């Protein structure tokens, strides 16, 4: 019957309870939805990192990681042999990588030159899809280069222009080659775009003397879940090389993902803190209005624990009734926008891209976070209930019922 009393008491002041309930619902909706956007951004960042940037796993010569000298390379045939034996590997790209200088008539800039097999690069990171203007690298055409639109803009380059790449070979001698720009590319990671140009691996090998060898192997898996098992296999098969997972190659992505939980928790916490003031205030008013009633109940024999429980119950109901509505609304919004996507491009412009995020976000609502939010709401309700309930306990029946 305490539950019945609490529930009916809740609706004695309909407007007041509705305001609080609605605030809780709106707060939960906003909080959870923002959380979903966060997680959507995180998931998108993860997919971009894996599918378009670093792949799942990379293999390097241990010396290459410290200073990117051309002499730290690996024989391609031994890598091919290992990779082809692992069915979980979807595609891999063996690259020659070196740093150098890009010179044009209007200026020069330090860059990283990636010598790639056009087909393998397409299979691992979808490179061809990022070409905005002109053509992707043609396996048949010699000395073509793909530069980013960003770099082209900066150095006033265009398709068909000739540029000179000055590089260091395996013996640390300076070597140079002339390349013609075949296309302009544009990925979701603007900072990286500015630093990287792509040429055929055979052309680069020819310049720096790394035929049959590679500096970097990028491996894409069929499923994210196979990451650790493939990682272990590679460590065993290629103990002389450094094997790294995407978390190690792109620690900032891993950090962003791991801080999402904390962020959303803090966010929800702040919302709940604000709501709890409203809840406490409402319940204090309710207790004050019912001074006589509570005094009468204590007079006729309702003990303190029950009085306390009655107020706590009512507070919990007040706080919790709105939460599922808000969460449901957030879930529906997420479902809908998760399907259509939210295009932040027009609002945020290029700034999202500058941080490596796609402008269209597909919000996601992980179940465990929804449950966590529900728990937090419950905890907030209990904490918010304590003060009004103590207030009720301090009432003295004689004083309360004196007319």
């Amino acid at each position: 019957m305490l539950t019945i009393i609490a529930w009916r008491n809740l609706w004695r002041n309909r407007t007041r309870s509705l305001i609080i309930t609605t605030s809780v619902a709106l707060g939960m909706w906003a909080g959870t939805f923002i959380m979903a956007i966060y997680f959507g951004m995180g998931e998108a960042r993860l997919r971009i990192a894996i599918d378009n940037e670093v792949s799942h796993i990379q293999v390097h010569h241990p010396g290459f990681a410290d200073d990117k000298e051309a002499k730290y390379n690996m024989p391609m045939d031994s890598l091919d042999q290992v990779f082809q034996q692992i069915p979980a590997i979807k595609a891999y790209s063996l690259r020659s990588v070196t740093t150098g200088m890009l010179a044009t008539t209007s200026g020069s800039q330090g860059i990283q030159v990636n010598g790639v097999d056009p087909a393998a690069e397409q299979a691992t990171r979808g490179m061809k899809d990022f070409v905005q203007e002109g053509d992707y690298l043609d396996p048949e055409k010699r000395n073509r280069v793909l530069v980013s639109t960003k770099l082209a803009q900066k150095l006033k380059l265009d398709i068909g222009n000739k540029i000179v790449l000055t590089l260091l070979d395996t013996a640390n001698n300076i070597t140079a080659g002339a390349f013609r720009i075949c296309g302009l590319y544009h990925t979701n990671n603007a900072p990286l775009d500015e630093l990287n140009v792509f040429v055929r691996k055979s052309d680069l090998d020819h310049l720096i003397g790394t035929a049959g060898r590679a500096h970097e192997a990028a491996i894409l898996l069929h499923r994210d879940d196979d990451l650790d098992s493939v990682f272990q296999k590679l460590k065993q098969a290629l103990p002389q090389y450094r094997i790294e997972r995407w978390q190690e190659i792109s620690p900032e992505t891993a950090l962003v993902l791991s801080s999402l939980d904390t962020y959303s928790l803090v966010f929800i916490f702040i919302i709940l803190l604000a709501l709890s003031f409203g809840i406490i205030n409402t319940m204090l008013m309710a207790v004050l209005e019912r001074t006589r009633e509570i005094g009468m109940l204590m007079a006729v024999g309702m003990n303190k624990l029950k009085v306390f429980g009655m107020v706590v119950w009512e507070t919990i109901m007040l706080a919790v009734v709105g939460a599922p509505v808000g969460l449901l609304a957030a879930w529906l919004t997420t479902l809908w926008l998760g399907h259509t996507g939210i295009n932040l491009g027009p609002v945020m412009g290029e700034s999202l891209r500058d941080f490596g995020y796609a402008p269209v976000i597909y919000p996601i609502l992980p179940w465990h976070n929804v449950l966590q939010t529900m728990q937090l709401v419950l905890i907030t309700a209990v904490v918010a209930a304590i003060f009004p309930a103590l207030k009720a306990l301090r009432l003295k029946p004689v004083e309360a019922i004196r007319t």
Partner: protein
Amino acid sequence: MQTVIDAHNISKVYNPDTIPVHAVNNVHLHLNRGEFTALVGPSGSGKTTLLNIIGGLDAPSEGQVVINGVDISNLKPNQLIDFRLHNIGFVFQAFNLIPVLTASENVEFIMLLQKKPKAERNKRVQELLASVGLSDKLDARPNQLSGGQQQRVAVARALASRPQFILADEPTANLDSHSAATLLDIMEKMNREEDVTFLFSTHDQRVIDRARRVITLVDGRIESDSAETQIKH
């Protein structure tokens, strides 16, 4: 004769440190089972204070209250609440009922606190509300009942716990004379048929006339007690 209330030497001083108010002075009160006693006196004579002390709602400045052999001043706060629940029925002047509960729920509630089984509760609620003439108002909320009907529900509620006695502080003060008479009829009937002990305060002469024993309080002292007068004569 079984003693139900034995109050010795009760005094109550409000604000002893500032402007002391001697609300009750050196009162002795003895009540036996089955009595139907009125505590009368003008406003401010100390009726409410005395009833609150006897009912364990307030502590006396001096003296002791023994109910059914238990000295209630020795009870801890929660024990006292529990003692009230099982031994004393209360009818106040107003605000007796929980507004969000129906008449029958209000009566049932007290038995629920006593942890009585559902079947017993239901049966007693029906009986009690029938005997106060409210069989047709079982599901009415207090605000759908007249003042007199509300007080009848309060009497039923006070009886529901099967207390040693019922304390009623000016139960008819807010009622018209017809409703007051009906309430008194019901209280009398309960006293006669169920042997329930009543101690009620009033300053209404028509109510005083219905009491079998009248204790008159003036300035916190017992001025006369009809029981003693009878013995003397």
